[in-house]
């Protein structure tokens, strides 16, 4: 087994801090392995959704009529845009444009906040209609509809928690860029945080048609 860790390529190129042994590839591989466990976590829920949808196809369609497609579409656009600003933030730091990177990263965090705000109004509206886990109104409906809304709250809720976690990570990254801990020569932290943010986006890309476009 080779014991020499390959230095970050940028260190080689720029010549300074060459003594610091950093393995950016290794860091990225570690991040991807973590992302794959996240994928497996959500895949289990998607599996549950598929099986229940097969058994309760009509009920799922009936329940889908109570969904707010507009809120869902709006949130899809918000999250896709936040992925764009995330990618642009990394592109900016790669080119040494610190403040541009900060601007894009702040936009990403604000778009994450917008996503949660829309989600708040969406859930509030559903709850106002008496649709929430264990509500008397929901328990009067068929098993399939109860399952649909159970999965809806679980999956979008778990996804929402991931958005919150992502925002917290991104706030830390923002501080790192401001304090020059993340720079043109060493931006692996920002890149990995970006990977997490994009994964959250990808999960939403699949949640969207399954819950909001079923009618």
């Amino acid at each position, binding site marked *: 087994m080779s014991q020499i860790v*390959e230095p970050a*390529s*940028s260190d*080689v*190129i720029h010549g300074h801090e060459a003594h610091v042994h950093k393995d*950016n*590839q290794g860091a*990225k*591989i570690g991040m*991807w*392995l973590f992302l*794959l466990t996240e*994928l*497996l976590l959500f*895949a289990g829920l998607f*599996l549950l959704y*598929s*099986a229940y949808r*097969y*058994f309760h196809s009509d009920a799922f369609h009936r329940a889908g009529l109570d969904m707010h*497609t507009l809120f869902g*579409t709006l949130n*899809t*656009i918000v999250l*896709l*845009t936040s*992925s*764009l600003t*995330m*990618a*642009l933030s990394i*592109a900016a730091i*790669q*080119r040494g444009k610190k403040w541009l990177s900060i601007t894009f990263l702040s936009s990403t965090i604000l778009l994450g906040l917008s996503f949660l705000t829309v989600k708040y109004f969406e859930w509030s509206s559903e709850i106002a209609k008496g649709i929430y886990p264990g509500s008397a109104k929901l328990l009067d409906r068929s098993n399939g509809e109860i399952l649909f809304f159970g999965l809806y709250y679980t999956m979008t809720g778990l996804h929402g928690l991931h958005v919150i976690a992502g925002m917290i990570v991104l706030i830390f990254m923002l501080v790192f860029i401001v304090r020059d801990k993340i720079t043109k020569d060493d931006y692996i932290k920002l890149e990995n945080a*970006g*990977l997490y943010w*994009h994964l959250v*986006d*990808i999960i939403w*890309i*699949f949640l*969207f*048609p399954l819950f909001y*476009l*079923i*009618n």
Partner: protein
Amino acid sequence: MEAQEAKSHSEQISHGTYVLVWLALIVLTCITVAASGINLAAFTIVVTLLIALTKASLVVNIFMHIKFEDKIFKVFLGIAGFTLFVIFSLTFADVFFRR
């Protein structure tokens, strides 16, 4: 060195490329919403999921730089994708043919 190449490749992606990918993602979102409005019966779910897969692959390849990474990343994703495929196939084989 391969690692260096991968890095410089991802640095070559221009802001314009990212914006174009974003535009494609937005257009695909509009298409999927429109398609779900048309009554295609059982095909609706197939169409919307195919569009979702296309969108996901755009995000993975460009935004997450997988297209420009070393082969090992693609192998990781391939194995993960295959594992999920097996898990879903086996579960569906049970669900569809039960009774």
